[in-house]
């Protein structure tokens, strides 16, 4: 007998059919709810009804408040009416605020691109002393919470700001050289805050490009300018459009800069808050609907510009090598410019740290604070001063955890539903499939599965497309009425509403991260687990989740940072007991206790930076 072959007896045993499904007991009948074709080894069994239930939950959290706001904006004391909309368009300050929101957002995109794209090229394509350090510093604004950044700008470039006073002294002027107010100030803050989107996305796009494409263009006679225009920039289109969309949406929803610097120059978010504070609830709802409409139009317009992804090149190669700046004088100049830029970018952080050391009432008119100590930090030992920090931490943590769980569940369900939609056979429950007939059941199930997957993805991503103020108003509208049979509960004034708003706003970050992670997973891994006898849940726990961990961590990290520093929804929904750090900063600034406000700002910056460092992927080059 040849060695290595199994014995005839064992071969015969292998050939015998096994009784029943692998994991069922000998007495249980085969399941009629899950025909063999539906057994996807990669994901747990998510029945169609379960995925539908998840979609209903997300629709209630995300879509329902928006829908209610839209409905109530058409509802007056005597029933349906377009009166409020007519009123909106009759009032010049209303449509003026909308127009201002639009052009400020577009201008923010242009200015952010003008700064961020060249910076990305410099740091990705050139090599000079300090490139790595300066390249990391250039991304600093991403870890600066919005309100903190605005206040830091006030300290730096306001009429009494350090830089203003320095320039005034240098030029021996009688007054401050400029006034930080109006659209110019808003655009300055936006440029500083948003160029980093273009910078990061463009750098990532450049790092992915294949050097062979540029060499091919070169071999075909294209000079540097033509290579840039005809090859590099077109290949960056997806990155640029994504950055532009992100900048547009964020600028449209921007609240801190218009609130502090706008003055009489109102944009829609500040107009909404003003209407709400004035008790003009119907107008605030109309304004909310109009702002949401502009955001959705912007999102729709971007869909046709190729933001969905870079064209497949089918080329595997390395990015172009960085060009070393050779001449010593040029290298010195570039390095000096880089460090000067780093200083400018670091100034907001440094100034917040400085102001946090200024005790209340000690800095009146001097150009520089005369007293610096840690007295403000010592006040954090006081329970009342600690409360906003505790509030922000628990609300951000709870919201992030819930958003991570919900986002992951929605992503799993969406992917599973779409996969089943692509399979033959029925995916409806057996009895229903039997009544309808297998063919009809197949078509119906396929349509439902595909639609359900799409619905889940849309609901998870929708909050990203809608300005934060809009959601805040929508949630306040929905959860200010006690009508449980309509899915409405009185949550306003409770500790639940603010973290709920954070959860909704965090869903796109966690859900899309989970979706991207799932789509990037090699399906062979789960198949290998199944072949080794792992059931669906074990495969999820031991294979799928560990693979998803980096993506989920990145999404959760960003969600935590966003929730921790949130101001836009907080200012609409907070109560005294739930006031987060951002509201406390604003309150201290309004009370002229700048030092204490800066302390909270420093803590917020530190918390964001720690979260960013813990959860962001390391730089590859």
């Amino acid at each position, binding site marked *: 007998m040849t060695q290595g072959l199994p014995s005839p007896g064992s071969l015969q045993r292998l050939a015998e059919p096994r009784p029943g499904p692998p994991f069922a007991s000998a007495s249980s009948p085969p399941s009629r709810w899950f025909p063999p074709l539906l057994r996807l080894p990669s994901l747990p069994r998510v029945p169609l009804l379960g995925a539908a239930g998840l979609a209903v939950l997300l629709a209630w959290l995300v879509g329902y408040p928006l829908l209610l706001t839209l409905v109530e904006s058409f509802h007056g004391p005597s029933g349906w009416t377009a009166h409020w909309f007519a009123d909106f368009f009759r009032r010049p300050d209303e449509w003026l605020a909308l127009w201002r929101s639009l052009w400020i957002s577009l201008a923010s995109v242009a200015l952010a691109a003008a700064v961020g794209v060249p910076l990305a090229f410099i740091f990705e394509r050139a090599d000079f002393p300090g490139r790595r350090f300066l390249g990391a510093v250039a991304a600093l604004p991403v870890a600066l919470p919005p309100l903190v950044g605005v206040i830091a700008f006030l300290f730096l470039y306001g009429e009494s700001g350090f830089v203003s006073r320095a320039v005034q002294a240098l030029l021996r002027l009688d007054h401050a050289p400029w006034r930080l107010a109006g659209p110019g100030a808003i655009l300055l803050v936006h440029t500083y805050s948003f160029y980093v989107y273009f910078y990061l996305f463009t750098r990532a796009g450049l790092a992915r490009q*294949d050097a*062979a*494409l540029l*060499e*091919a*263009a*070169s*071999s*075909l*006679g*294209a*000079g540097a300018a*033509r290579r840039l225009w*005809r*090859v590099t920039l*077109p*290949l960056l*289109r997806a990155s640029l459009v994504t950055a532009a969309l992100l900048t547009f949406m964020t600028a449209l929803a921007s609240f801190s800069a218009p609130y502090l610097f706008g003055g009489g120059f109102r944009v829609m978010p500040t107009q909404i808050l003003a209407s709400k504070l004035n008790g003009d609830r119907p107008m605030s709802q109309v304004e909310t609907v109009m702002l949401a409409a502009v955001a959705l139009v912007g999102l729709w317009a971007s869909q046709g510009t190729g933001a969905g992804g*870079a*064209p*497949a*090149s*089918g*080329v*595997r*190669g390395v990015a172009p090598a960085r060009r070393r700046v050779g001449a010593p004088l040029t290298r010195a100049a570039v390095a000096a410019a880089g460090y000067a830029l780093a200083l400018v970018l670091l100034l907001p952080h440094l100034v917040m740290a400085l102001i946090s050391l200024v005790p209340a009432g000690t800095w009146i008119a001097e150009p520089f604070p005369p007293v610096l100590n840690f007295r403000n930090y010592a006040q954090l030992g006081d329970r009342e001063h600690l409360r906003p920090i505790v509030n922000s931490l628990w609300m951000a943590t709870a919201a992030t955890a819930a958003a991570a769980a919900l986002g992951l569940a929605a992503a799993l369900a969406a992917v599973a539903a779409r996969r089943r939609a692509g399979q033959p056979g029925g995916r409806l429950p057996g009895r229903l499939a039997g009544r309808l007939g297998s063919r009809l059941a197949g078509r119906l199930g396929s349509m439902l599965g595909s639609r359900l997957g799409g619905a889940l993805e849309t609901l998870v991503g929708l909050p990203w497309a809608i300005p934060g103020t809009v959601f805040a108003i929508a949630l306040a509208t929905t959860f200010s009425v006690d009508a449980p049979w309509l899915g409405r509960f009185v949550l306003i004034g409770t500790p639940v509403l603010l973290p709920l708003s954070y959860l909704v706003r965090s869903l796109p970050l966690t859900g899309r991260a989970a979706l991207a992670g799932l789509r990037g997973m090699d399906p062979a891994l789960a198949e290998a687990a199944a072949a080794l006898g792992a059931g669906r849940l074990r495969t999820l726990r031991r294979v799928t989740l560990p693979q998803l961990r980096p993506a989920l961590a990145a999404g959760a990290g960003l969600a935590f940072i966003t929730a921790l520093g949130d101001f836009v929804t907080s200012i609409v929904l907070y109560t005294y007991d739930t006031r987060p750090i951002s509201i406390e900063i604003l309150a201290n600034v309004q009370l002229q206790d700048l030092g204490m406000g800066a302390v909270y700002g420093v803590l917020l910056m530190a918390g964001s930076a720690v979260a960013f460092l813990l959860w962001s992927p390391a730089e590859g080059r």
Partner: protein
Amino acid sequence: MSPPYLLLDRLAKTFGAAGARAGAGAGPGTAGDRARPVLDGLTLAVDRGEVVALLGPSGSGKTTALRLIAGFETPDPGGGRVLVEGQDVTGLPPARRNFGMVFQHYALFPHLTVGENVAFGLEARRLDRGQVRARVAAALALVDLPGFERRRVGEISGGQQQRVALARALAPEPRVLLLDEPLSNLDPALRERTRRELRRAIRRVGITTLLVTHEQEEAFYLGDRVAVLEGGVLHQAGTPGELYDRPATRFVATFVGRASVLPGIFEGDGDGGNGRVRLRLDGPATAAAAVAADGPGAAGSTATGPGAGGTAAGDVAWPGVAAEPLAAGEAVELVVRPEALALVPAGTAGALAGRVVERRYAGPVTYYQVELAGAGLEIEVAAGAGAAAPGDEVAVAPAAAALAGAAGATGAAGRIFRSAPRGQA
């Protein structure tokens, strides 16, 4: 004699710190120096319309040579020139050399259609739209892809992408065509077919072509001449027949085609030409083995057996042709082709005893791996399908046809080279 159309004149390239200091006289071995000489004085002349294949294993410098010609790398200071029709193009940027290049992974612009890709090189020529359209159509017709203008790059197959890349390189009518491993991305069946189409297209255009490959069969099929590189050095440039029948160096002899290497002592008149090698198969210090030359990594000899002690074969001397001037009594290696050997009856005078350890059927010929008795060496013999079976005791001798100087044969068992120092292949 007219000057060559394309001349590579002592091209040299070193990667690393010493590359920049090469002109200043910093030699190898400088403390802290991490220089890697990749190309060492390559000189090669190519005639107009000629196709020359640069063949060599990985790291031989062939791709670096191609990139130097294209202008994507610059030679070391004082490290040679590239001349086309007598014009020194070494200092010109790639965009101004008018060389067409097909990249290993094609480098097709993914955001452009097939037609736009092919038209890319024509954009700077100030042609009107009609002329561009006509040139694109002609280029695509040349590679048998008529009507593909509107297709997207991601929608076509790998073989079609390769042809589009060729059409794009040819459309601007370049002076020289450079091909960097043009078929390496294709599966074997497609590679065979595309190879024929590539040859047909190049011949039809009649353009001076340099192609880089590590596949010997590809080089022999496509090239009028083949230049064999190893370690940045050009070993030999010649027709496939010259390389196979008259290899200039031991490396070429073992890299090109199948060969076995047998150590021995030279017996001859010292002026090169015909001689004999008294075989010494007695230890790993001079051990050699049959080498299959099917691709990269095949160069060099490795001992495949213990080789310690064993039978000294001092009574067996085989004839060969010295590839270089040798002195009698010098340690040499005899490189023999499988078809220059035959399986003969045991006890035949001048034969080496051995045992068949492997038999490989290859159509019209079967290759027999024979372990020589007591020597720890294996040699490869080509014979008929039923000549022997694994485990058979056989004897190996130079084939009668080779010794008798039959048509196409050299009248020798193989080529004789001076033994490589210990540690070198």
